[in-house]
């Protein structure tokens, strides 16, 4: 259950950004978690309220974007969508592929509740 530790890290980063923008609070946190990140979205959701309790993130909605796992063949160049435990080229079948997406573990964005925000 490392998801709690990850939630604590997300909350710490969110608080830092919210503070630096003098936000009143955070309404939404958007994450991108690939199937090869080793993080279980359902467990992350369950752990989040524990890490967020009493912070500016306590009422934030957690949005989790889950990309597919995609690889590119180093021989034939084909891109394929694959299962997380079968990273093989969909065309020629080789395991000599590079990962295009699927291992992301990233905070994409956050929506802040703000009183006075300058126009860009």
């Amino acid at each position, binding site marked *: *259950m490392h998801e709690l*530790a990850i939630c604590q890290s997300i909350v710490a980063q969110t608080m830092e950004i919210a503070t630096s923008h003098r936000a009143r609070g955070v309404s939404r946190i958007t994450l991108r978690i690939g199937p090869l990140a*080793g993080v279980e979205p359902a467990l992350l959701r369950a752990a989040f309220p524990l890490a967020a309790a009493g912070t500016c993130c306590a009422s934030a909605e957690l949005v989790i974007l889950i990309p597919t796992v995609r690889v590119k063949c180093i021989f034939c160049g084909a891109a394929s969508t694959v299962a997380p435990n079968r990273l093989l080229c969909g065309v020629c079948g080789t395991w000599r592929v590079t990962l295009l997406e699927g291992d992301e573990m*990233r905070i994409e964005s*956050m929506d802040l509740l703000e009183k006075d925000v300058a126009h860009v």
Partner: protein
Amino acid sequence: MCKICGCAQGAGHVHVAGAILHTEFGAKIEVLQAMLHENDRQAAHNRAHFTAAGVLVINLMSSPGAGKTSLLEATIRALRGRLTIAVIEGDLETENDARRIRGAGAQAVQITTGSACHLDSTMVHAALHTLALREIDVLFIENVGNLVCPASFDLGQHRNVVLLSVTEGDDKPEKYPVMFRAADLLGVTKTDLTEAVGDFQTLRALRHFRQLANPAPMLELSARNGDGMAAWIFWLLAERDKCRVTIAKHAHD
């Protein structure tokens, strides 16, 4: 539609990292930061320490009981007089493994994590300052026995070694792809038990491993009867030399 650029994503869409857009409800901030940003930052700091001191650092991971400590004991004995090895031991409780490592003749620091399922870079940082790094050639970080959580936490190591014992079954790489994809070397351990286990096929383990698109070498090892230990030591010495070359380059720059 976004009022600023006209794209389809609507209000609050941001085009520059860290920029703020005014919306009816507040502001959307583009972050694009690793979820474990602080751990990654500390890990980079640890790695800089290790590299500056000329120490090759290996994060040793496996399920509990795959033979991490036994392999380390055999490695320390095999390299006695050639390389100085130290070990950071991670376990939920007890000093047992650190005692075994000291018994084999190497320096050991035990980290007890309580209920935490993995080591993180802060724990390793605290441990590394208790070691005389400049006197060490290779530092092993024996992670908490677990095929899931340790894979997500960078500790500042140079290489990941993942062990799979023949008693666990040859389909482990297929079941735990994140861990095995991270391996720079896969060690199949306890090969002295292969016959007793009966249904472990090394080639099948290798096939599952390659299906993760991982080109890393796989070695069959027995810390008990010494099989494969020469190849393992050869790999360690080669990695240690590569690490040294990197340091020499840094010194020239």
